[in-house]
């Protein structure tokens, strides 16, 4: 070695290095493909045996990963990387091309516009087709809202029932108790869902004008949050507050479910209750305002 010229030695060394390096990458790629193959066979076996989610995931990882790692390594270390250079072609067309394009466009447009009456007729026909076919299509998707957002299934005298349809008695709840109720005949309804709370045994007046609404300490509020419509499902007995778990609005039960915290803009509507002669809880009337989140037509 010592007798060779520096250049020759350099070139030999480089070649040796490259050979070693190449062989190493060939091995890496080969092993990747082999692992992938084995994992794929394993995947087939696992699947055939009835499947197992975690094993499938792990084997898919090896099968796909081996393939990917092998191909990428091959493409990165065993084929020429350049760098190569390529000129960008001008994106913009020459001025003459653009002028010719505009001329062609105008020539055609002029040929059409000469018959201006026909152009108007065409416009009318296409416009009418669009309007007449599009609007009924949208319209047939659903009914007009009309009074939909103003009414629930609560009526004068509706008995309060649980989700299973059984009627609620005035003796059903202890103080601090809470129950989701529905109007008789509509258990489980998404719009009429109401939360019944009993903060005390005494009649409760939440606001002036609601003197008779809370007999024997029973209060009923719409369970649909006035913010985004989630069920106001959590009652904190200690603070006598209702919490909406979606966006954390808090409503104060004793003062008419006024929002005391969070993004809810309005109190939950209160359902006026009475206890009938057999001891069942009933609604004096339906809600006196639309329940749930706001909408355009709603005035206040």
């Amino acid at each position: 070695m010592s007798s060779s010229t520096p250049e020759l030695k350099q070139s030999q060394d480089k070649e040796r290095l490259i050979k070693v390096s190449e062989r190493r990458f060939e091995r890496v790629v080969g092993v990747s493909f082999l692992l992938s193959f084995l994992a794929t066979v394993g995947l087939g076996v696992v699947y055939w045996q009835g499947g197992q989610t975690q094993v499938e995931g792990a084997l898919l990882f090896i099968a796909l990963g081996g393939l990917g790692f092998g191909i990428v390594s091959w493409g990165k270390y065993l084929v020429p990387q350049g760098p190569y250079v390529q000129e960008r072609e001008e994106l913009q067309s020459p001025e003459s091309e653009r002028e010719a394009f505009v001329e062609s466009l105008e020539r055609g447009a002029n040929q059409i516009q000469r018959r201006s009456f026909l152009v108007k007729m065409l416009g009318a026909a296409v416009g009418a087709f669009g309007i007449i076919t599009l609007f009924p299509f949208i319209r047939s998707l659903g009914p007009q809202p009309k009074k939909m957002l103003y009414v629930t299934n609560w009526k004068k005298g509706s008995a309060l029932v649980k989700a299973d349809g059984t009627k609620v008695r005035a003796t059903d709840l202890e103080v601090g108790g809470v129950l989701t109720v529905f109007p008789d005949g509509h258990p489980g309804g998404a719009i009429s869902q109401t939360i019944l709370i009993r903060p005390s045994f005494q009649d409760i007046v939440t606001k002036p004008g609601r003197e008779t609404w809370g007999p024997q300490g029973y209060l009923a509020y719409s369970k649909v949050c006035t913010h985004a419509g989630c069920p106001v499902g959590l009652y904190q007995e200690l603070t006598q507050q209702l919490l909406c778990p979606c966006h954390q609005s808090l409503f104060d039960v004793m003062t008419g479910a006024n929002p005391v915290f969070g993004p809810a803009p309005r109190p939950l509507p209160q359902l006026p209750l009475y206890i009938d002669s057999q001891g069942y809880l009933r609604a004096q009337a339906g809600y006196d305002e639309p329940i749930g989140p706001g909408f355009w037509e709603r005035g206040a």
Partner: protein
Amino acid sequence: MSYKPIDFLDERLGTAKFTRKSLNKIFPDHWSFMLGEIAMYSFFILLGTGVFLTLFFVPSSAPTVYHGSYAPLDGHVMSQAYASTLNLSFNVRAGLVMRQMHHWAANVFVAAIVVHLLRVFFTGAFRKPREINWLVGSLLLMLAILEGFLGYSLPDDLISGTGIRIAYSITLSVPVVGSYLASFLFGGQFPGDKIIPRFYTIHILLIPAIMAGLLGAHLAIMWHQKHTQYKGRGRTEKNVVGIAFWPAYAMQAGGFFFLTASVIAALGGLVQINPIWMYGPYIPYKVSYAVQPDWYMGWLDGALRLFPSWEIVGFGHMIPTIFFPAVLLPGITFGLLMAWPWIERRFTKDSQSHNLLENPRDNPWRTSIGVGVMAFYMVLFFASSTDVLANTFNLTLNFVLWAFRILVFVIPPIAAFVAYQLAKEARSVPLAGTPRKAMVIFRSPGGEYTTEESEPRSELVLKHSVFHGEEPLPLPEEARIHGQEVQTPVLEEERFVFSAPSAVAVVSEEIGERPSGGSGVYRIPRGAPGAGGGLFSPRGPRPASDGEDSEDEE
């Protein structure tokens, strides 16, 4: 050489020219260009796993009594959508892994789009002539978020059902037409029995078809305009320097599909996501505590929590409070996003075309605005877990909410200011961004240390890529076609490509501007005590250019 199929196609379609150009297309090579690829590959995986899911999913709200293999829900009444999702999770072979891969791929998809968008933003890749692709990409992001929400809603579990309820309220909140929109979309009052089948049609047909079209346009425009590139040796506004499509880029990009798929498969198989059987079927009057939507909806959820309870009432009408965070905010977000190339241009008055990318530090204003906006959405994202944070850190909800309401206005300007200063600082550092030579520390056999400015990254390059040349050259076929002189790279034994036989010795200056700074190389000559260690010391035989070392050997 002539192949039959090539002649067949070329005689009929004239494909040879276009396909030749495509094979010889040059792609600049940089890791940040793979972000968009991750998004695209996730989309393919979503299509594949999604088709599988459609074979088993029943898009129906019709009630059914469950008698499947998941015992805790046996005998429960639930929608067919929920029951069939349970069924495909537990009773269809590989069903759960496919479902979880689908869900993970959706999360990765949106994440990759967002990071890709940030790369394009911070490097100024959206500037002329690429504004159209910026618009197409923004549309794809919007659709991806919507598509993700729709898919999340389909299983009809307790959490997704609550999400649909919120979506109904948001639709309702649109001024003037809201109640009509909601009634038409849901086929009447919430919940009705039409929303699951409708979401299904939109999720598996309508939006994927539009997205496939937009993705095609996105790629076609990119292909036609050619990729942007970072500044570097030999790179100008008028050329593209990189690897050839065939075979290097095709192999790297094609293989990368499998790598993306393998990670998603590992997540799908090993990391549980959306275990709907633990949530139970959707029952409108039930609700779960501490639930968060998928991550890409987090900013909207956070905005819903933070926005004050303001409701505008007057003239017999109402603009509900959620209109502002849930309709107006996304509208402004995507409006500004799409308008950004024109907004920026109004200030820069720059009407030039740009193919060279900017380093974020080269444009402190844009960088600081981007960082500020990012910070704003990050705060909103974290605000979507106010309840969890309050619980975890034993704080009152009141405190956490108000903290976020303040932070959402305080953090973004601070972040923007810091980003601006950092960018300016980085720019004013002499030689920032230019390659520095490594300092090499030598230890003599006697234990004496000397430092020397490095030579050569040659061996580092050799170690990493055998087939890496020096000067950018045109591909031989392209040069021939364009009547240029064909510069054949020096081929040695037809295996490796070097521009000059002395490549190894001259690499130091030529490797040129790499974005990274210099690094210290600690090298101990062979034969010295403790030899064989040290960073970058190759295990194999070393090139003779290692000066001192080879002296030792002789």
